[in-house]
């Protein structure tokens, strides 16, 4: 039986008037990549901050490698690596100086520190530019060093908070490959993202977070079953004067379970959508609108989120 390396139990974080995290519970098995998927402001970073002992939970607790984040913070910090969403590096220092400094903070010294600095530079693919100041790096390179810092002390669990935000597709691909490679070497990863594709690619199990609550948890198959056989239809439109009336008309169509509007795009959940496109286009024309584009997607995590919250993941 696979050992649980992380058990979060009913975590709450209450600020003055904001209940940022409301009773989140989940487990992570050793060697697993577990993703928390949710839009910005859903409570993902607050959850990771509590698991990193940066914030004290208002209620609940979590055990990491058997240590409580409430009462054994120092022991927890020895076994976790943290990759924050921000580039938490010193831009005036070189990559090597940054890694040496952070290694010292993780109690590494001497030959061991030197060895780990070179190994993590290798993982980041930046050995040849290690003596350049971080401020001269591209966004993707900074992200890679940001990850390298979290790996210095060979943690048992790596927390990665939106590590691909704001970088180009090539760098993003490289980071995702790095995460997969680290996992293949046995590293457990807790990965937060608002990109459905990243969670889908990296993780077997995914927790969906919204408004501080874990609204769904399971494998991708288990989650997509929540929306049944519904397809997601995205239709670019123009010329509609009364969108509410159009949404009501579309929602009333047979087989359409949900109709919403995101900017200039209609988003529908419909069973066997391809067969119903003529009805849908007819309703739009009747409402005075013109169809500019149509995209039909089979059930996926975005559809699950839409199904559960009535909103798109990117909202």
């Amino acid at each position, binding site marked *: 039986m696979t050992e649980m390396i992380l058990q979060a139990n009913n975590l709450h974080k209450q600020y003055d008037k904001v209940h940022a995290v409301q009773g989140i519970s989940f487990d992570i098995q050793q060697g697993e990549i577990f993703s928390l998927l949710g839009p910005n402001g859903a409570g993902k970073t607050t959850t990771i901050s509590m698991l990193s002992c940066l914030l004290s939970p208002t209620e609940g607790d979590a055990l990491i490698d058997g240590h409580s984040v409430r009462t054994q913070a120092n022991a927890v910090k020895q076994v976790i690596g943290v990759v*924050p969403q921000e580039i938490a590096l010193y831009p*005036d220092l070189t990559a090597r100086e940054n890694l040496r400094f952070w290694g010292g903070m993780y109690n590494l010294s001497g030959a061991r520190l030197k060895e780990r600095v070179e190994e993590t530079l290798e993982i980041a693919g930046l050995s040849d530019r290690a003596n350049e100041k971080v401020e001269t790096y591209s966004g993707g390179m900074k992200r890679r060093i940001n990850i390298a810092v979290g790996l210095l002390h060979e943690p048992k669990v790596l927390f990665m908070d939106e590590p691909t935000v704001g970088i180009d597709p090539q760098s993003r691909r490289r980071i995702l490959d790095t995460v997969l490679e680290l996992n293949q070497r046995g590293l457990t990863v807790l990965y937060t993202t608002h990109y459905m594709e990243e969670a889908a690619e990296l993780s077997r199990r995914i927790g969906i977070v919204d408004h501080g609550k874990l609204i769904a948890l399971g494998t991708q198959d288990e989650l997509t079953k929540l929306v049944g056989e519904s397809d997601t239809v995205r239709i670019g439109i123009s010329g509609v004067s009364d969108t509410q009336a159009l949404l009501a008309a579309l929602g009333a169509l047979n087989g359409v379970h949900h109709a919403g509007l995101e900017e200039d795009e209609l988003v529908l959940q419909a069973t066997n959508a391809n067969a119903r496109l003529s009805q849908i286009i007819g309703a739009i024309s009747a409402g005075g609108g013109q169809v500019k584009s149509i995209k039909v997607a089979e059930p996926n995590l975005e559809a699950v989120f839409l199904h559960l919250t009535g909103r798109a993941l990117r909202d």
Partner: protein
Amino acid sequence: MKALQIAIKDTLTRFRDWKALAGMLAAPLIISALIGLAFGDLGGDEAPIENIPVVLVNLDEGELGQAYEEVLTSPDLSNLIALESMQDPEAAKARIEAGELRAVIVVPAGFSETVIPDAEGNRGQASVELYTDPAAEISPVIVRSIVERITAAINTTLLAGQVAGNQAAGYAPLLGPAMAQLGAAIQAELQSDSLNLEEPLLDLNVVSTGETGESVDPFAFFIPGMAVFFLMFSMFEGSRSILQEERHWTLQRLMTTPTPTWEIILGKMGGTFLTGLLQFTILMVSSTYLFGVDWGTSIIGLVVLVVLTVFAASGLGAMLTAFSRNENQAGVVGSAVSLVFGALGGSFFPTDGLTGIINIASKLTVNRWAMDGFLALTIQRQGLAGIQTPILVLASIGIVTFVLAILAFQKRFVK
């Protein structure tokens, strides 16, 4: 120790920042050079010292007492000294003790009668007494110079009179024109070597502690003044870096490592302290070579004073930062405090002339105590024993502010 690693990292980062270096090192040296060259000697016409509070107790009813009074009240000295007349020497001296005066000049009763030769050419010895404020650094030197010049001029006149074979009654016409020119001449003479009469007929009896210098090197004042002034700025800036780390999330990342929060805070404050220590040391060494600044004779006194000045300044910076709402507020408060402390605390001009509430406010600044200490070492040539009060006050400021800062930061960052 991780606090030391954090401190070294911060110091390294700071000294790699050209903009910071310009503010920490180049600016104080350049400004000191400009001010020093502009003012020349502190006794010069454009000396920044004004209205030194002085009392003349003229108990002499003759011409010489009158001569002292006329010179000291001449328009040429009216900006430099604020002269009052009193008749009770003890009451006047008590006012020095109370911090109201910087000097008291006593011309004793019968002074003219004793000193001016009679018809047979006989004369006696008499002394003008000068009492100065031991807590003041520069003004006693200046007042002493003035009194010395008056005394020397009278000596010259008396000698000339003797050579001419004049009688006592004939000195008055000689004294008049000589004294009329003396006030204007004193300003210029303050920069020159003192008159060295081989046989002075009058003595000047200086009763004070401390001052020994004949002239004041402007760099000996302005370099410490500017060094302390810019030290305050860099200490506030350095302390603010803890809030910058919070904004950049490096502070949060530090707090996810197995490093106690107090050690992180100590390291950050230690980095500011270390930076200030290096800044001040570099300024001292470079000013010694560039401007020939003489930092006094007490190496131990200087080391202790520099360490405690930096300790107090960095502690104050950390405390104000810890109690600021955000980085911007810390920046505004830091700049304002640095400027006000510089102005009140004697970084731009000597505090000798300060009295009343301004003097009390001045004593609430780190700059004042640091400057008192530095001027005692450089101008008054005192040792460690002579700067006990400044080092005690600076140490107290440092301890209190550091403790308050650590507690406030701890409360702020542990959520």
